[in-house]
């Protein structure tokens, strides 16, 4: 109550505040940028690794780098996933970006085109064998007009997890996971379990853990976009077949069963495979850590994604992250030195084995497999082998947001509102139109 009575005092406070603010409003001096302290170049490194497991690992790597030489000092900073890049964009626009940042592998070319990142060609030129250290499909994503604009850091790949205990229970050979779509469907059927008319367990759900796009990638082996010729290939006959297969698979159960199951586990908290409600699941190899932590010692196996027909190829899909230097960073030489360290075989192996993560450096990947043991080693080794047949689908610069036109069409197929052929034809047309309008 006294608060309001003293309003005259408040008025004075207010006017004083206004005064100082006014003075500040006119003052437009730039902040002194963090220059060299004690002869060292200070650089700032941003990423979204802030959890209890990842942060200590990256901090250790940064610390190792700081100790390994006496010219550059790196400060690590955590920023939340997603928002980190909004902030980066604003800071690039304002001319005070971080020196190194971890960014999405799928949009490197766009950022290069938009002048948001530094061309690394002049540095990489001095390291001619650098590019051979990384998986070629990852290295390809960092090239824009043949110049690298980032160095790949980590990646992932989708593999098939199957529950060996349930395989035995269903009379299947626990050491023979399905290798084709037909086998997958047949095995899944045997793993189904009913209580009365209700399904209490399903063998497999094609749209759990991965989306229809991964099935399309697996079928066509190239995905929805032809990067060489810069055009969409969405209504490829094999893509149509893939959607039809998912539809037929789900039709066997009816949309009600599928929806009930799908929705039970839609909220990313509980997982049906870990809960024993799903016999097989497609997921990223890192899913292993969740089975390890919450799976109560279940016996499981991993296998490459089954192929559409024998000989069609076990193409899988993955994503990943890269390290890059935002445009306007003050010490690009020092930044590059640090990125090189970050993506070197030794540090990559450390990151990979500590976090059970797939890394971009080939030697690093192989070394990490050696550091692991038991089940972890088994899964990791398969994942590393699987990288050779893993497709990365960066956003094409001709139509970076084309998926926003394709996914709703696929949704319509799954809801039974459109045939796969009609939907993909429409999607193809819409994306062609988008690519044309972006020219």
């Amino acid at each position, binding site marked *: 109550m006294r608060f309001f009575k003293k309003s005259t005092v408040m008025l004075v406070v207010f006017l004083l505040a206004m005064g100082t603010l006014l003075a500040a409003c006119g003052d437009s001096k730039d902040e002194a940028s963090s220059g060299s302290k004690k002869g060292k170049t200070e650089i700032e490194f941003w990423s979204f690794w802030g959890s209890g497991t990842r942060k200590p690992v990256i901090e250790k790597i940064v610390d190792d780098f700081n100790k390994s030489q006496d010219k550059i000092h790196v400060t690590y900073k955590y920023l939340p996933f997603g928002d980190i890049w909004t902030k980066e964009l604003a800071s690039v626009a304002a001319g005070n970006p971080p020196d190194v940042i971890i960014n999405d592998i799928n949009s490197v070319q766009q950022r290069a085109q938009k002048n948001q990142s530094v061309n690394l060609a002049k540095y990489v030129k001095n390291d001619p064998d650098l590019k051979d250290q990384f998986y070629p499909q990852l290295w390809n994503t960092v090239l824009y007009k043949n110049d690298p604009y980032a160095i790949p850091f980590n990646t992932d790949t989708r593999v098939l997890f199957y529950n060996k205990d349930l395989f035995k229970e269903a009379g299947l050979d626990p050491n023979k996971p399905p290798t084709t779509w037909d086998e997958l469907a047949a095995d899944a059927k045997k793993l189904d379990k009913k209580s009365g008319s209700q399904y209490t367990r399903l063998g497999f759900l094609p749209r759990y853990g991965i989306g229809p796009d991964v099935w399309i990638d697996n079928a066509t082996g190239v995905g929805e976009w032809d990067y060489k010729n810069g055009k969409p290939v969405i209504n490829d006959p094999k893509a149509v077949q893939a959607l039809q297969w998912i539809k037929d698979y789900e039709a066997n159960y009816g949309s009600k069963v599928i929806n009930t199951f799908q929705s039970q586990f839609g909220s990313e908290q509980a997982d049906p495979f*870990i809960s024993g409600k799903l016999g097989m699941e497609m997921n990223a190899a890192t899913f292993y850590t969740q089975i390890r932590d919450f799976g109560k010692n279940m016996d499981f196996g991993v296998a490459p994604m089954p192929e559409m027909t024998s000989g069609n190829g076990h193409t899988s899909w993955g994503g990943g992250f890269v390290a890059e230097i935002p445009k306007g960073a003050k010490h690009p030489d020092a930044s590059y030195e640090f990125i090189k360290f970050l993506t070197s075989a030794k540090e990559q192996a450390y990151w990979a084995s500590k976090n059970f993560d797939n890394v971009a450096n080939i030697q690093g990947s192989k070394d990490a497999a050696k550091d692991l043991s038991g089940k972890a080693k088994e899964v990791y080794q398969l994942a590393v082998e699987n990288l050779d047949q893993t497709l990365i689908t960066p956003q094409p610069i001709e139509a970076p947001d084309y998926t926003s036109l394709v996914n709703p069409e696929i949704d319509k197929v799954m809801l039974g509102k459109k045939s796969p052929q009609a939907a993909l034809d429409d999607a193809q047309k819409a994306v062609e139109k988008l690519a044309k309008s972006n020219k």
Partner: protein
Amino acid sequence: MSKEANYFQSVKVKKRIKQTIILIVLILGAILILSPVWWMLATSFKSMTEAMQYPPTLWPHKWHFENYIETWKAAPFTRYLLNTIFITFFVVLGNVLANTFIAYGFSKIQFKGRNVLFAIVLATMMIPGFVTMIPQYVVFSKLGWLNTYFPLIVPAFFGNAFFIFLLRQFFMTIPNEMIEAAKIDGGNHFYIWSRIVVPLSKPAIATVAIFSFNGAWNDFLGPLLYVNSEKLYTLQIGLSVFKGQVSTQWNYLMAGSLLVLLPVLVLFFIFQRYFIEGMNITAGTKG
């Protein structure tokens, strides 16, 4: 006499019945409102394994009270708490002072261009923040305000369109006769503002205080954009560490969210005394 007593008796009974019905409705509503909160509370006490379990449990098997301690230790939350209190204090101060002041000008003083300027006030609310965010960032960067709390606090002292509009609506219900009378008595507008309008609008000002407290306390994008050093981070940024890119630590996230929520609730509970019926003086003056 007895007839009259009967009449009052029946009025009383009627009132009782009415009250009971309202009470039942309110309790049912409260259960609906609180059930999601129960979910949060239950999750916050579960072990990570139980939080990931299917089907989810409504009552934790084992109560992990230490979750709250673990949560608080997962990041320098004490520091974040102090930072958040600091920012919130000045934002609320700025909003309460500036907006009552500005809204008074827009509601109780006639001047040229008032309606046009007020339309501009409203218009500033209609442009989505995304498209002005980056230019705004550049402006604050040019002012040298990055990595300080200035971009978060200073704008509050320049008024906020939402609050100006809100307070204007309240001030306009204060009878002009009162203002005129005070003027005739020689009071200038500062006097009228501080001695009549502000005291008469306590519920409205309390509302502004609560809203702006809430806004500043829960602001996420603001501190994230403008603050660089981790020492200056706020509670909301701190909470984000539990929501990883791969998996979410549900129990800690919920425990943290509840801890962050608590001060706001306590404050709201206290501020409620400004919402007691009959406080506003207009009640007596005009019918």
